[in-house]
Structures are given as structure tokens and as C-alpha cells.
């Protein structure tokens, strides 16, 4: 059952869109009509209900993160939205065109790829782009060179794609998605298989697309990627929307800090008076404070004559924690995985 954000123990979540039992109400787009919506979208494969009455909304101009654990139905939803598979029930609206009913019209405004982008291996990058691009409409050689330049493949434009690395193919996939300057770009794990530099470049590109007004629908298993790049996000699990809202809203506001003073016993009393509970770890006092409360805490400690030696974040409560909190109820597997840091902060790579 979807977890109500308000009841989440992860800090003080803001009221994002209401995750009802089956159909969370769309949060509404401030800037006008949404560019992508799903209405009771469902897909059944035999006995498996892969997508269960999914309602979500992507606003024009969003860089929209699409998150979910393995098997949540992310790729299935993308395939449904792009008309690769047919819904069992419900429909999507893409650029004001109903899918699957008006699929061709919708696809005129969309670029992207699902799973790994693949190309004809014996053709050059340029010829591949020419071939795929011509399916949407006339495409100039200048535009082909332009998108190859964007993804830094211009110097390999005439090389056979069969000799390209995985990362180069990912970049070429983005290039073909950009060819017709679509209003909506759907990218399914575009940084998958890229080295750190490549990941950074792709994220910068996605950001710049968003800044230029292009809506990007980004499916990713990299939670920090969504945190860094996206303006809004949805988390799905078992084919249902668990929560959707702005990334800022999804990120819990609580912040645990570790405090070291000259007199920890006295400091503990002060902090208890301020925050109720204080934990101790490795000589530090740990308290859950809001960002604004940290300054007030320090002022009170100093006012009480305490020599404040260190105030450091103890545990940054990020989207990953929130994600795990939201989805762990449905997991039948082992308990919450051990927290990792840096590039290790990824979910398992397998697609949903």
C-alpha cells in the first residue's frame, strides 16, 4: 500500500501530492497544461500486474525524475507512454495527444530511448542519425552535426557504430533523441554504463535542456542523480505511484548534527531542553535539528557558556533514505541495505 508522506518517519516531509490508495491526485502544473499525464494506466502480463492504475503528471519544463526499485514497473511505464506496449487499462496523454489512440501525433513531439540505445553497427554514427532522423521528418546535415557536437561525437561521426563503446552509444542515443528538438525527451537511465566524467557531462546536458525549456523525463536508479538534476520526481513501487512532487519536497527537511563542546554533559542538558532527545555516539552528542534550528542551537550553547568545538552533519537524510522508507514496506527481501556513500549510492543496476 502506498505510504502517506505525512506519516513518513523521515523527518518533516512537506505535503506533496497525496498518495492515495490507488490513484494519487496529480499535483497540478503551475505553468499550464502538463506535457505528460497518465490516467489509470495499467499493464498486466499474465498474472503479473506490472503497472497498477498509475496516475502521474509531468509539467512542461520539468526535469522529471522517475524512480523506483527493481521491478517497480518503470520501464514498463515508459514503454506504455511511448506506445511500445499497449495498456490493459487507462491511457497516457503526451503533448496533448492521447496514447495509444494518437500515438503518431504524440511521437512527433517526443524524443528519447528505452533501455540501451542501439544502432545499426555497420553504419556510421552520422548515417544512423540520418536514417532515424528521417523517420520524423526532413533533417539537415547541419542539425546532425549539431547534435553530434553536443554529445561530443562529432570527431567520430563517420566511424562505424559497431566499434563504439557503451558510453558512446549512450551519447549517440541522446543525440538521436535531440535530433528534432522535441518538446519532451524521455531518457531511460541515460548515464548507465558511463564513466564518472560521462555521467557528469550527461547530467549537465540534461540540466541545460531543462534550462532551455525542454521537458526531460528521466528514469534513473541513481537517486543522487535525480536529486542533482531533477526539479520534480515520482517514486513508484509495484506499478503504483508512491509519491510525487518536487524534489525539494521529497527530500526530508530533518538534519542530524553531531555536536562537540568543552562540556558535553552540560551541552546535553541544553540540547535536551531544546530538542527533547539527545543521543550520544563516539563522544559526540547527536540531535535532530532543522537547518534553521542549527544556528539557534549554536547560539544557545554559546549563551550557556559552552565552548562549541564542532557541529557537523551526522547523517544527511537524502532522497535515498526517503525512497527506502517509502518502498521498504513492500519489500519482502532483507532489511534496508547498508548505507553507502559517494558513487556507491546507487540502487542495483537491473532495470524494472
Amino acid at each position, binding site marked *: 500500500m502506498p505510504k502517506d508522506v505525512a506519516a513518513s518517519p523521515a523527518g518533516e516531509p512537506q505535503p506533496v501530492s497525496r498518495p492515495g490508495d490507488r490513484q494519487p491526485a496529480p499535483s497540478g502544473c503551475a505553468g499550464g497544461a502538463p506535457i505528460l499525464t497518465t490516467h489509470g494506466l495499467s499493464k498486466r502480463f499474465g498474472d503479473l500486474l506490472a503497472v497498477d492504475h498509475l496516475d502521474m503528471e509531468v509539467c512542461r519544463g520539468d526535469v522529471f525524475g522517475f524512480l523506483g526499485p527493481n521491478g517497480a514497473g518503470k520501464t514498463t511505464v515508459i514503454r506504455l507512454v511511448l506506445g511500445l506496449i499497449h495498456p490493459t487499462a487507462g491511457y497516457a496523454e503526451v503533448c496533448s495527444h492521447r496514447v495509444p489512440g494518437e500515438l503518431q501525433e504524440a511521437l512527433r513531439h517526443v524524443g528519447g530511448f528505452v533501455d540501451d*540505445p542501439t544502432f545499426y553497427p555497420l553504419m556510421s554514427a552520422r548515417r544512423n542519425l540520418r536514417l532515424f532522423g528521417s523517420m520524423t521528418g526532413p533533417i539537415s546535415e547541419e542539425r546532425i552535426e549539431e547534435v553530434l*557536437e553536443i554529445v561530443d561525437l562529432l570527431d567520430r561521426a563517420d566511424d562505424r557504430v559497431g566499434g563504439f563503446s557503451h558510453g558512446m552509444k549512450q551519447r549517440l542515443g541522446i543525440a538521436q533523441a535531440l535530433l528534432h528538438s522535441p518538446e519532451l525527451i524521455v531518457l531511460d537511465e541515460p548515464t548507465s554504463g558511463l564513466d564518472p566524467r560521462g555521467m557528469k557531462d550527461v547530467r549537465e546536458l540534461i540540466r541545460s535542456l531543462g534550462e532551455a525549456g525542454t521537458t526531460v523525463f528521466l528514469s534513473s536508479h541513481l537517486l543522487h542523480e535525480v536529486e542533482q538534476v531533477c526539479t520534480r520526481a515520482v517514486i513508484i513501487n509495484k506499478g503504483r505511484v508512491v509519491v510525487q512532487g518536487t524534489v525539494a519536497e521529497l527530500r526530508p527537511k530533518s538534519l542530524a548534527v553531531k555536536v562537540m563542546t568543552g562540556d558535553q554533559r552540560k551541552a546535553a542538558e541544553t540540547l535536551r531542553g531544546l530538542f527533547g532527545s539527545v543521543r550520544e555516539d563516539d563522544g559526540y552528542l547527536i540531535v535532530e535539528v532543522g537547518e534553521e534550528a542549527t544556528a539557534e542551537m549554536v547560539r544557545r550553547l554559546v549563551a550557556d557558556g559552552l565552548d562549541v568545538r564542532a557541529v557537523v552533519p551526522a547523517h544527511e537524510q537524502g532522497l535515498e533514505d526517503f525512497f527506502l522508507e517509502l518502498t521498504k514496506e513492500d519489500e519482502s527481501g532483507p532489511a534496508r541495505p547498508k548505507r553507502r556513500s559517494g558513487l556507491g549510492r546507487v540502487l542495483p543496476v537491473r532495470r524494472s
Partner: protein
Amino acid sequence: MNGTVPPVSADLATTSSVGHGSTAAVMRGAHWGPLRREITKLLFQRRSYVIWAGAALVPFIIALAIELNHGGPHGGEGPQFFSRVFSNGIYVAPGALTVLLPILLPMAAAMVAGYMLAGEAELGTLRIILLRPVARGSIVLTKWFAAMLYLFVGLVLMVASGLLFGGLFFGLHPMVLLSGTTVGVWHALGIIALACLYGLAAMACIVSLALLFSALTDSSLTALIASIVVYIVIGVVIQFSYFDWLKPWVFPTYLEDYLSFFRDPIYWKPILKGLEAFAAWSAVLTTAAWLLFRRKDVLS
């Protein structure tokens, strides 16, 4: 990725509603026709050339073997036309058609059409194609025409090779038809062309069958094998008199009726019956492929 992103992004912003960036630029790439796209794909597959090479090689081998053997198979045995090649090179092309029509051409048809959808699914390009605003029905039809065009080129290569090597080894002379009438070289070439087109029409059935299997499966090899198995099974079944009632309804029955072109006057009745059967089988199978592909969930 390089630092040129912001200007291009600006371009994206300004052209987003149009959906066709740089439309003002000179369209050197022009608009590629769907058929041209499919042909381009075929030209960028090595297997395409293997089949074409085979089609061109068979007439050469026939001509060479007969030259080295100082004559065709003895006692009038062997494939049709072979015994006449030694005296007239113009028989090499119809002789090659006799050899290719029941084996290599169906294989080529099954291979090229079997790959058309299933191969793209295997490669992963099908999902890229389907993200473009192209109707699935038109994709199926375009692929059918591309496969037919591919086979047509194969037949042209076979005839050209037959005439070249037949002419080189034995010279090209007026042709004596199966009915005993002698016709000039150009007339004979016309008859050979008609016979080849009839063979091509027969192959339309295999193309449609393979396209159907190609729509059913995501494995081009499975589509190829399934098509050939169906073709062979039908061919075997109609050999037995018990199944004589079936013969008028299955296309392999009419495969050898191209020989009716080599009579004077041309015996049109079996030809037209054959063409009817080919058209009906192709229409039914291609429609089935189209309907299946339209509703197919592309999960590859």
C-alpha cells in the same frame, strides 16, 4: 560533452514548438523515403551480399560445369534446360532459375523477411524505430516491399550472370522453346524476364510467411527456420496423392508453372492460377503480419 551545449539548448528552446530544429538550413539530407531506408539497412548487412553473390555464382557454376563436362546431364536428365546449355548459352539463366527457385530463393526470401522485424527486435533498433512517428502498418508494408526489391535484385544478378557466362562460354543464340518454336535472343530475354517475375511473385508468399513469423517472434533465426519448415512441409505433403485435394490451395503447387512461359503460345492458364494463389497467400499472410505487429507489445 563539450561546452557548446548552451547555444544549442537555446536553439532547442526556440524551436521546441516546431519540433524540427534547423529547418531553415539547407536540407542536404533531404527526406528519405521509407523504402530507401529499408534498402539502406539491407545494404549495410553482410548477409545481403552473400545471397546476392550466391545468385550470381550459380549461373557461373552451371556454365563452367557444363563446359568442363563437355555437355549437360546425359540422356536429357537433370534440371530443366541444362541439356541445352552446351549448344546455347541463353539457357544458362533459365537453368539457374530452375535450380534457385525451389531452394536458394525461398531461403533468401525467408532470411531477408524473417530478419525484417525480428532482427530489428534482436538488435534493439525496433524500439528506436517505433519511437518515431511512423505507423506500424506502414513499417510492415515497407519491409515487405524492401524484401521483394531485394529478391528482385537477386534475380537480376542471376539473369545478368547467366547471360554473361552463358554468352562467354557458349554464345547467345535464338532459343528453342519447350514447344519446339524458335524465338530470337531478345524475345527469349523477354520470356526469361517474365519467368523470373513469376518466380518473384511466388517468393512473395515466402516473404509474407517469414514476415508473419518475424512479427510473431523476436528471433530472426526462428522466423527463418519456421518459414522454411512450413514451405518444405507443404512441398512434401503435396507429393502424396492422398493430399491431392490440397494442391490447388497451396502455393508451392504452382512454383514450376513459370515453364509455361517457355511455350508458344504462352500457356497462361496455369500462370494466372499460380499468380492468383500467390496473391491470395501473400495478402492473407501479410495482413496477418500487419495485424499481429499492430497489436504487438515490443518488449525487446
